C-alpha cells in the first residue's frame, strides 16, 4: 500500500548568482517500509525531504508531476491542510537537538504543547502522554527530564526527546534528516535501535536521510543514492555490495577501513560523464 508517491520532483532556488537546481526530477514511492536517501552535500537529499512537507520558502520553488500522501495531493494542498498534516501524519526529526528544541522552554512544556493546543487534552492527560512517550524512547527518569531545559540534556538524550516529541501524535510517516550525525558513535547505535523498534512496532513509513551509506544500508530496507539533485541508483539494502553505478561504488570504496591497506584511498572520478 503506497503511503507516499513522488514523481518528477524539482526544487529550484532563485539567487542573484543565478537559478540553483537543488532537486532535478526525483521520483520514488514509499509504503510502510524504510527508505534511505543517501547523498553528499549538494545532492539534494535534505531538500527532497523538506519538499515533501512543503517546508521550502521562497526564493525556493517546488514543482512536481505528482506528490501524493495517502491519496491526498500534497502539491495542491493549501497551507492549512499542510499544517494539519505536518506533525500529525507526517513528522520530521532533524539533526541537532541543540537547534531543533526550543531553548527557552522546558522539555515537558514542549512535549505537551502540541497535545494541549492541537488535540485539546487537559494538562494531566497531556503530561501522562508525554511521560509515556519519554518512556517509549527508553529514558529512565522521565519525570526529571520533563522538568529539564534542553541545554541540560546530552546529545543522545536530546535526540531521543526529539523523537519522542515527534512520535506522540502517532504519525504515519517519519522523515529523519541525519538524526544521528551529531551524536557520538556509541550513542548513535543506541538511538538508532530505539528508532528501529518504534518504527517497526507502529508500522510507520520512514524516510532516513543521511550521508552515511553504510549506516543507511544497515538500517533501511531500500536505498536511494542521490548525486547533484538526481537519483543515480536505487537498490535493496541487502544488495548494497552489488551496486552498479560508479558513484555508489565510489562511495562504498572511498571509506577507510580498519585493517585496510595503507595505499591511497580510491577517489571519485569527478570528470566522468555521470558527474556533470
Amino acid at each position, binding site marked *: 500500500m503506497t503511503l507516499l508517491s513522488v514523481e518528477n520532483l524539482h526544487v529550484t532556488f532563485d539567487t542573484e548568482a543565478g537559478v540553483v537546481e537543488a532537486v532535478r526530477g526525483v521520483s520514488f514511492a514509499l509504503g510502510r517500509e524504510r527508505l534511505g536517501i543517501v547523498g553528499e552535500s549538494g545532492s539534494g537529499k535534505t531538500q527532497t525531504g523538506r519538499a515533501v512537507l512543503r517546508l521550502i520558502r521562497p526564493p525556493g520553488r517546488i514543482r512536481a508531476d505528482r506528490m501524493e500522501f495517502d491519496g491526498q495531493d500534497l502539491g495542491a494542498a493549501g497551507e492549512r491542510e499542510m499544517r494539519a498534516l505536518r506533525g500529525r501524519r507526517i513528522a520530521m526529526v532533524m539533526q541537532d537537538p541543540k537547534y531543533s528544541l526550543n531553548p527557552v522552554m522546558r522539555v515537558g512544556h514542549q512535549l505537551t504543547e502540541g497535545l494541549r493546543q492541537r488535540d485539546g487534552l487537559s494538562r494531566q492527560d497531556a503530561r501522562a502522554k508525554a511521560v509515556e512517550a519519554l518512556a517509549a524512547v527508553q529514558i529512565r527518569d522521565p519525570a526529571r527530564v520533563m522538568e529539564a531545559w534542553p541545554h541540560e540534556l546530552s546529545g543522545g538524550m536530546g535526540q531521543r526527546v526529539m523523537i519522542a516529541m515527534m512520535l506522540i501524535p502517532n504519525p504515519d510517516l517519519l522523515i529523519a534528516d541525519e538524526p544521528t550525525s551529531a551524536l557520538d558513535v556509541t550513542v548513535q547505535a543506541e538511538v538508532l535501535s530505539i528508532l528501529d523498534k518504534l518504527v517497526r512496532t507502529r508500522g510507520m513509513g520512514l524516510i532516513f536521510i543521511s550521508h552515511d551509506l*553504510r549506516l543507511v544500508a544497515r538500517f533501511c530496507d531500500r536505498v536511494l543514492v542521490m548525486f547533484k539533485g538526481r537519483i543515480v541508483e536505487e537498490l535493496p539494502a541487502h544488495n*548494497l555490495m552489488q551496486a552498479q553505478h560508479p558513484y555508489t561504488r*565510489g562511495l562504498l570504496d572511498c571509506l577507510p577501513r580498519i585493517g585496510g591497506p595503507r595505499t591511497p584511498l580510491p577517489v571519485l572520478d569527478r570528470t566522468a560523464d555521470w558527474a556533470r
Partner: protein
Amino acid sequence: MALIEIDNLVVTFAARNREVQAVRNVSLAVEARESFGLVGESGSGKSTILRAICGLAPISGGTIRIAGQPAATRRGAGFSRRVQMVFQDPYASLHPRHTIDRTLSEPLAIHGLPDADARVVRALTDVGLPPAFRFRFPHQLSGGQRQRVAIARALMLEPDILLLDEPTSALDASVQAETLNLLNRLRAERGLTFLMVSHDLAVIDHMCDRILVMQHGAAVEELPREALAKAQMKTDYARSLFAASADRLLGA
C-alpha cells in the same frame, strides 16, 4: 628523544563556579616522522590536548616538551615555525573577509619571509588547487577546497609537526578520501610528524601508526595499528568503540 613529549598533562577549565578537568594526567610521546592518533568521543579531551600544545588551553599540571625544550609560556616565533595546526571546521578556520591569497601570505608577512607571491602559488599547487583560486573568498570554495587551503596555510611556515584536529569530520566521504590521501602524500614528501585527533577509528587506523584511546579526559589504552586491525584491545571501552565504529556495521 621524542619530538613531542607530554607528561601527566592536566588541563582545567573554570566554568560557572565549577572546575572541569578536561584532561587528566595524560602522557604520550610522538617520535619524529611518526603519525600518532588520538581517538575518543566528545568530551574525551582529545582536542583539548592539541590546544594545550598550542598554548590555547590553560595547563594546570604536567609538562609539554617539543624537541626536548619545554614549551614556553608564550609560544614564540620559533614555536610557530615548528608546530602548526589544521582545524576541524573548514567553514570556520578561514577568515571570511580575507582572500585566499591574504590568508596564505599572512604567515610569511608575520615572519618576514620573502617571495610571498611565488610561495603562495606553489602552496596552492602543492595541495592540488588551481592558482586561479588565489583571490577567491572562502565562501566561494567548497568544504574540501577550504580544508585544502587550511592545510596549505599550515604548511606555509614549513613546520616539522602538524597537529590535525578532526581534519575531515566536516567533509563528505569522497572529499575525505581525497583529503586523507593529500595529507599522507604531504607527510611522505616533507617528512612531517602528525598528531591527529578523530572520533573515527577507521580514519585513525588509515592515517596513524600508534593510537591512544581516550575517554572523559583520561588515557584508556595505547596500541599500535596492528593491534587495532587484529582487534587485540585490552580494555572494554576500546573494544566497544571498535564495535560501534561504522565500518564494522557492514562486516567489511
